[in-house]
Every structure is written in structure tokens, then in C-alpha cells.
């Protein structure tokens, strides 16, 4: 247990507080700048902005989650950290599971905070904001799991960073459909389905990611 908290603390120090390239700040700034640019591009049409704003927040959140992918797994493989953990009996599955948690903590909650000013910029009603926040709470863990899994699979490949972005986008479509879809139906059903997709991704991630890291050794 002490061992796992040590690992988690290292992950958080690197992802949340930005020992490596800006940490959580860069994706959030990216997210906010999309929310800021969208009204400029569309023009001051308040009903249109309010109707489409929730979807824009979702698309921006998805793209912001892709930004840190290339530093999620690959640096630790290159440093030989995974090998040293394996020698100490720490399985790749545990490392990946903790990394999903750390990755989510470094962009999920900050994104939910940033969604508040973003919704103001887009003129969303408080009811729409509530559904967006619930949807993000249900959907971002799935995005984190998907991101870490894909990062583990593409680690060590040439152009892995670009490839992982391309791989995440189609796989994240269900999250986007249910998460953004819950806005138009206005119900909790969409949020629940987003949560279900997230749970499936969370269950798969440690095993798929761990197997990918091990396969990369040969």
C-alpha cells in the first residue's frame, strides 16, 4: 500500500504539478481557448451558442485530454522504470491502473472547473451546465483510461504521439455521443450511459495497458 502511494505521488508530481512539460495547465488553457474562440467564430448569436455550446465543451474536453498522451507511458519505458518495477514484483497492471488515476486527477477535475467559465463564455444556462458537469464527471474517467491504454500501446512507435491521438478519437466517440447527447435529451439517461462506457474502459485499461508494456519488451 505504501508502495502504491509512492508510485501515485510520483505520477501526480509529474502530471498534475507539471514536472514534465506544463502538467495540467496546458490542456486546461487549450480547453479554455477553444471555448473563447468559438463565440468569435460563430458571432453573437446567443440562442445558437447556447444550443451548441455544450457540444463544443465536450469536443474541447476530448481534444484537451489527448494533449498529454505522449508523456503518459513512453518516458518511463525509455528510462527503464517499468523494468525496475517488474524486478521488484510491481506488475505493469498496477502501474497502469495508478497512472489512469493520476491522469484523470490531472485533467478531469481541472476540466470540470474550467467548464464553468467556458459555459459563461458560451452563454449556457445553469441547467445545461449542470448536465455538462455531470457528463464530464461520468465521461472523463473513461477518457483517462482510454488515453493511458492507447499511450501504452503506441509507446516506442515512431510517430507514436500523432498515432495515439488518431487512435483515441474514434474510440472516444461513444463517450462523446452519450455525454454530449445527454444535453439535447436533457435527461440523466445519457449521463448514465456515459458512465457505463467509462466503467468498461476503466476495467479494460490496466490489463490492456499492462500487456502492451510487456509486449513492448521483446
Amino acid at each position, binding site marked *: 500500500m*505504501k508502495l502504491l502511494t509512492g*508510485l501515485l505521488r510520483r505520477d501526480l508530481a509529474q502530471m498534475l504539478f507539471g514536472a514534465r512539460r506544463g502538467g495540467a495547465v496546458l490542456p486546461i488553457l487549450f480547453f479554455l481557448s477553444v471555448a473563447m474562440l468559438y463565440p468569435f467564430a460563430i458571432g453573437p448569436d446567443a440562442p445558437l451558442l447556447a444550443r451548441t455550446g455544450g457540444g463544443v465543451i465536450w469536443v474541447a474536453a476530448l481534444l484537451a485530454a489527448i494533449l498529454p498522451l505522449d508523456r503518459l507511458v513512453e518516458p518511463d519505458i525509455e*528510462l*527503464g522504470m517499468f523494468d*525496475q518495477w517488474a524486478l*521488484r514484483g510491481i506488475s505493469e497492471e498496477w502501474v497502469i491502473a495508478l497512472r489512469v488515476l493520476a491522469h484523470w486527477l490531472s485533467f478531469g477535475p481541472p476540466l470540470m472547473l474550467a467548464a464553468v467559465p467556458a459555459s459563461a463564455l458560451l452563454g449556457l444556462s445553469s441547467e445545461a451546465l449542470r448536465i455538462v458537469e455531470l457528463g464530464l464527471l461520468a465521461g472523463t474517467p473513461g477518457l483517462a483510461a482510454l488515453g493511458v491504454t492507447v499511450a501504452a500501446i503506441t509507446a516506442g512507435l515512431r510517430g507514436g504521439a500523432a498515432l495515439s491521438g488518431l487512435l483515441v478519437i474514434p474510440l472516444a466517440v461513444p463517450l462523446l455521443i452519450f455525454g454530449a447527447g445527454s444535453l439535447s435529451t436533457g435527461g440523466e439517461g445519457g449521463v448514465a450511459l456515459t458512465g457505463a462506457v467509462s466503467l468498461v474502459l476503466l476495467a479494460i485499461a490496466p490489463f490492456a495497458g499492462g500487456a502492451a508494456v510487456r509486449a513492448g519488451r521483446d
Partner: protein
Amino acid sequence: MQAGTQAARIDAKGLACRRGDRLLFAGLSLALGPGEAVQLMGANGIGKSSLIRILAGLMRPYAGDVSRIGQVGLVDERPALDPQLPLGRALQFWRGIDGAADVEQRPSLALLELDGLTDVPVRYLSTGQRKRAALARLLGQGAPIWLLDEPLNGLDTGAITLVEGLVANHCRGGGVVVIASHQPFALAGLTRIAMADYAA
């Protein structure tokens, strides 16, 4: 010294290694008991590093099997220390993992002449300093089996003597050491395996 309750051993029988469609070596066996050390010799690309990774259990051999008693400590070309952290903190992370956080770190740092560098980020260290830092990590781990892949690369003559002394000390304490190096390694009772004899 840290051999634990059971005496450390590493046994390998009939190992073969294939990389891509090329067989690197075949029919390689070795048996090392407490206090024994072996050096794998041979030209680049002959399979020394692959053999080390097979012995560590990080790579599956193409044929044969390996059995180990005791934890394995590995030093290879990657130091496994976070480049952006000061050396002291980077080593502290591994000491936390190895459950040695309360053990005084100074002696092993002083031994490796690293005590003046604890505040320097790992990425600013030279090749030789990084190698010595990796050896400090190995000392902190307290593993009875040492697998050293080119431990002398980038070290100056003073540091080479130092490493030879560390290995001799480890063997005296009942440890097992496998060294892969093309450089001569001075150690009493060191067995040498010429990898070329097993080349396929």
C-alpha cells in the same frame, strides 16, 4: 550481506535467444551460488545484454529456462532515475519503493563519490556520474543477485576500481553477480564466459 534467509542462486539451463529471425546464442547454461561472479565476454551484438535481460526475467528465452532465488537488481544503460529531479530525490523515490527510506543514504553516496551531487538534477549529470547514480540505486535496493550490463561504460579509472571493489564486497557478503562487459573486470574468483562459444 542482504542475502535474506535463503542463499541466493541463479541457474540457467540450455538458454537460447532469438532476435528477429537471427539466433544469437544457444545451449548456454550457467549456475551461480552465493559469492560467485561471472563475466559475459564478447563483441557488440553477440547477445550479452539479451542474456542479462533473460536472466532478469524481463525477456523470454527462445529455449531453456532460468530459476532464481533472491531478488534481482539490474543496472543497464538506463539509470531509471527521473531526469528532472535532483539526484537525492530521484534516489529517494527508489528507496521508498525498496522499503529502505529510513536507512541512512549518505554511506552509499559517499562510497560512490556522489555526496556532492544530491542537489543536481539527474539530466545534468555526466555519463559516468549517471552510472554511479544507478549503482547507488542498486546498493539501496539490497538485492542479493546483481545483473550488471556494461557497468564500466563511461567510468574513469578511479571509478572502475570503485565498482570492482563494490562487486568484490557483494560477493564476500554471499551475493551473486553477473557482469556483461567487453572490458576487463578485475575480481578474484571471477569466472569468464566467452559468448562466442555459444554463438549459433
